[in-house]
């Protein structure tokens, strides 16, 4: 049995553990030609000091946290609401149809969704702005205006993923004991009260668990999405840690500084993820393995 584990252990060691050790780059003036773990010049905390000295460092951190937090909050609230609404539907066929359609965007890449969004949100020809025009409103440059960029990112992310989340909550709703509803109805509780006193408490565990587990994403504002839709015009509100690391490391070849910010991100995330798993384990008896 131990033999069977070897290939998996090996791959994970090479592609997860070596990069972790490779974070020593953060303390070096890294030159790729000399190689990982090669004879590099050590600069101590120099890269970190350089990061702190960047004028936009706090701004990037703020963007990251703001976007990530909004996505976390709405990413829980919206699916729960939709699941409750779906649960009220009398027609099973309609329910099934809606479910089928709403999680479709989840399976598409941000490349596809990004280009669709760029197309429909275009200030001149996009259908959204044409609709606004018909309604007599000003055209909005959703992806190029600092006032709207974050909101557009948050809403489009929720739009992509709410169908997926809905499934989880809907499953929790269907596992609630039906006799509770019958008892409540006999006691004279209306649908609203049934929802408030039976359905929501029945989902309490899963909602709390999802909240706790989403905590680890506090620094993940969504690289795939933002990278494919942002532009220098909206760096002020849209540039996040991951996009900054990418530009720094792979476009400007500042490997040391990029690895240093990657390391900071990893450490802060480790803190949050550990707490979230710890809480999930203690309160909800949730264990991955």
């Amino acid at each position, binding site marked *: *049995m*131990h033999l*069977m*584990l070897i*290939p*998996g252990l090996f*791959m*994970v060691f090479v*592609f*997860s553990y070596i*990069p972790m*050790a*490779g*974070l020593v*780059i953060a303390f070096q003036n890294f030159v*790729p030609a000399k190689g*990982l773990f090669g004879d590099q010049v050590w600069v101590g905390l120099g890269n970190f000091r350089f990061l702190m000295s960047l004028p936009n460092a706090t701004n990037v951190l703020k963007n990251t946290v703001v976007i990530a937090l909004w996505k976390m909050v709405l990413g829980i609230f919206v699916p729960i609401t*939709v699941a409750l*609404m779906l649960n009220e*539907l*009398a027609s099973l066929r309609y329910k099934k149809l*809606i479910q089928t*359609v709403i999680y*479709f965007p989840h*399976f598409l*890449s941000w*490349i*596809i969704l990004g*280009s*669709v969004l*760029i*197309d*429909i949100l275009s200030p001149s*020809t996009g*259908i959204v702005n044409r609709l606004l025009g018909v309604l007599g409103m000003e055209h909005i440059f959703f992806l190029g205006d600092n006032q709207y960029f974050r909101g557009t990112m948050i809403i489009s992310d929720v*739009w992509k993923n709410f169908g*997926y989340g809905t*499934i*989880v909550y809907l*499953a929790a709703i269907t596992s609630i004991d039906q006799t509770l509803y019958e008892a409540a109805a006999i006691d*004279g*509780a*209306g*649908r609203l*009260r049934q929802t408030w006193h039976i359905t929501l408490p029945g989902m309490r565990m899963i909602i709390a668990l999802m909240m706790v587990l989403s905590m680890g994403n506090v620094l993940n504002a969504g690289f*795939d999405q933002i990278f*494919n839709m942002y532009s220098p015009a909206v760096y002020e509100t849209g540039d996040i840690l991951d996009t900054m*690391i*990418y530009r720094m490391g*792979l476009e400007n070849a500042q490997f040391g500084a*990029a690895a240093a910010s*990657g390391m900071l*991100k*990893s450490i802060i995330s*480790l803190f949050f*993820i550990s707490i979230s*798993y710890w809480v999930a384990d203690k309160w909800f008896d949730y*264990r*991955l*393995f």
Partner: protein
Amino acid sequence: MKERKKEKIKTSPARKIFCVCNGILLAVLMTSCILPFIHVLAVSFSDKVYVQAGLVVFLPKGFNVRSYQYLINKIAFWRAFRITVVRTVLGTAINLSLILLTAYPLSKSKEKLIGRSVYTWFFFITMLVSGGLIPSFVLVGQLGLRNTIWSLVLPGALPVFNLVLMINFFRQVPIEMEEAAMIDGAGHFKILTKIYVPLSKAAIATISLFCMVNHWNAWFDGMIYMKSATKLPLQTYLRNIILKMDMSQMTGDDYGLLQMLSNESIRSTQIIVAVIPVLCIYPFLQKYFVKGIVLGGVKG
């Protein structure tokens, strides 16, 4: 009492109004998920004049299939398409064999697999911390994988979250069957292939679908690891031509047909063609993935 009052409000007409509003609201949500794609589909079939004038909404105007004719002959697109198909098949095969092989021992009890908690921690830690982009990028370069298909399938060879799903499925396999096979002299590999795999077909289907979708949609690795334009997977290729709107990639022959086409139509057509495979496996996704995410999300 307050409860009585509320009860009165909830008479049947109010309930009816609520149901109608609820139904309508859900319909709006549902259409929001599909209309953007219908628009793209309409643009792909529309005539240049109408597209550029911004007159195409959800129905094609000046219906034609020229952009599809153009795309059929576009070698670069199909080359990228083929690379993505190859990586999806190869990548999913690697993912699945590693997941099966690793999940089997880890699904055993602590008594049966000595050091199980050490192994699980080894995998679990990778979900907590990662080296991040820069060291991984340097590592792949140093291993000489850049510009090869291996750079797309090896770094994520063992997706740990899917491994967890598989372990949980495997734990549901009745232990008696395994014990019986043991007595008959079957080894662990035989038990895995002859008992566990046939009994977890649904789980395997779920996880393969997850892996397939991941590989199909992956673009970032293609962008950073592939140096030559002829080796880009489909999503990366699409990113280059759609998001950057780089017209320099067009060859001279393209121009004849191109004059009759708008950029929007070509873009839309490529989006549609890239979405079709996802649509094709969508019924299967639907069938299996509810089980999968519920298990992954709720679990325990």
